[in-house]
């Protein structure tokens, strides 16, 4: 039988790989898949954690995450795209160089984590949460496509929940998660869907 801690570590590592996958792909559909897969993994983590510690908050959290973030957000995003959505890709992207930067950032983040927070939270789960958060930031900062930037935001959300679960379940974790999801839905439903898919340089917004 697989020890529980190893199962947690395995799920968190998978989440990290998905974060790296988000950096590589230039097709927009990949980004939506990243949202669904990473969120599902987090949901499984929260569910397992909830069942084994008999913490009902975490079980509720698992269902909320999969429903709001995994299904509803992805469903609304998919509606934005035409029939042949598999062919939609970011207009200009420097994916190979971003991948190298991403790996360098990953190593640097782990070193920083080891030197600072590790002494208070010596857990690989929190380290992975920290790394995914920085990868999410990188995704937002280096891309212009709004769906990709939004994926970065969701990655950050997932990372924060993982970080908090890794240390110990933070009080208000369900409320925090729901609020982050509501904000994500506001971003998607009201702002992202009513504008262009690429962040624009506008004369009025310069200076």
């Amino acid at each position, binding site marked *: 039988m697989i020890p529980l801690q190893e199962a947690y570590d395995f799920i968190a590592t998978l989440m990290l790989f998905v974060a790296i996958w988000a950096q590589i792909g230039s097709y927009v559909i990949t980004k939506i898949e990243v949202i669904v897969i990473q969120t599902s993994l987090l949901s499984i983590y929260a569910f397992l954690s909830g069942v084994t510690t008999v913490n009902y908050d975490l079980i509720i959290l698992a269902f909320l995450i999969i429903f709001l973030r995994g299904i509803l957000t992805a469903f609304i995003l998919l509606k934005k795209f035409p029939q042949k959505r598999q062919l939609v890709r970011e207009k200009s992207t420097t994916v190979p160089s971003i991948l190298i930067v991403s790996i360098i950032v990953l190593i640097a983040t782990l070193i920083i984590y080891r030197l600072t927070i590790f002494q208070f939270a010596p857990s690989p789960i929190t380290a992975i949460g920290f790394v995914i*958060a920085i990868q999410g930031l990188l995704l937002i900062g280096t891309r212009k496509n709004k769906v990709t930037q939004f994926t970065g935001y969701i990655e950050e959300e997932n990372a924060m929940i993982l970080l908090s679960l890794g240390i110990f379940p933070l009080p208000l974790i369900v409320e925090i998660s729901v609020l982050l999801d509501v904000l994500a839905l506001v971003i998607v439903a009201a702002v992202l869907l009513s504008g262009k898919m690429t962040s624009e340089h506008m004369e009025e917004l310069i200076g």
Partner: protein
Amino acid sequence: MNTDLIFLYLLLIVPVIISFSYFGNLSQEIAKLGSLIEVAISFVILEVPMGVYSSFNINSVNRILIISVSIVYAFSVFFASTYHKGIKEPRHLKLHYSLMHLFVFTMMFTLIINDFGLMWIGIEATTASSALLLIIERERNQIEAAWRYVLIVSTGLTLALISVILIYLYYHTLNSVSIISAGHSPSLILTIAGVTAMVGFGTKIGLFPMHSWLPDAHGEAPSEVSAMFSGILLPVAAYVLYRFFLATFSGRVEEIFLIFIMATLIFVALIMPSQKNIKRMFAYSTMENMALITLGLITGGLAFVGALLIILTHAFGKSAAFYSSGNILNTYGTKDMNKIRGLRDRLPSTAISLFGSSLVVTGAPPFTTFVGEFLIIYQLIKNGNIAPVFIIVVCLFIISVSVLQKVSVMIFDGNMENTPQLKLERTQKYVAGLSLIFAFSIIFVYLGGLL
């Protein structure tokens, strides 16, 4: 339940109840009445003794912010009633009002709640409730500005969550009053918590270099929303950062805060002279005011009093500046300062409110902002921080001269004596004027011992 607690609940419940006016036909009237009730409640709360009430907390900073939030909210509701007359779809206006009420609820909640986790939730909720306020007219620029606002701010705030997690890891509680009153010895974990709070909440406050959403959102939002963002939302975020600062305080954290504050002032001083858009100019001025407020709060002593004076004066002064900018946009149809001339002859009342508010927000003597700045500088000198004082004085001088020069050109340049005056709704004139009078009167309120 004691009476004080009832008033605190009322402060939160009133805006929530009136937000349901979306489903009726009297949303404008209900909004006006509701906002006035909120002002009345906030004045009652001024009499509530400082302390902890169930999950809430009243202290010397948040009681002042509650007053400024409620009054600017009322001003904005009245201003919006005529400012958005051009909107053809009444449903959008009703939604706009309802979101304004919810926005105020989230700010009040953030101010009075006595829990760092819930405080974070409150600040994040202000983003969710205010994002849609930017896009009432559904223009391309507004949507892009709203996108940048929600993405940058929520990303920053997600980082601030690390601070909440670390504070819980250290103290095993999130009760802000217990944590702050218990005191602590400096530790690396709290330093990291302080820095992540600074980066996270600093994004919302508009500290350099996380400020990039601020000029876009303030520049493109409807004027009453810009007034609420600048006058009350950012000070609320500064208050939250201040509470986190108290929980994580150490010499190292204070130094890091000081570096970011100085960087913000230098950045604004460098960019201000090249501004062409009137609302963006005032947005950058807000960055300067926020940097000073944060500096005053963390320095303590007389600087703390200075920060409180700036919070109040800035709330009304900057609101008056944005209302005046809205009046100009309504009549001239542009935000480009190069195309705005002869305000003295064409919009005399707005010329007065714009000039007066510019004097207030730039800290010209003898207005209260000047007194606040003076107290902050005095305390810094007393603490032996001479280098920051030098940077502050130089930056404030450049910023003030830039703003006043641009405003003076718009008001006094161009001979328009024979040109007819432009028509403007009376409510908009009165709101801008009244807001300015409030900004002027703060010093008398302070000297009269009412604060």
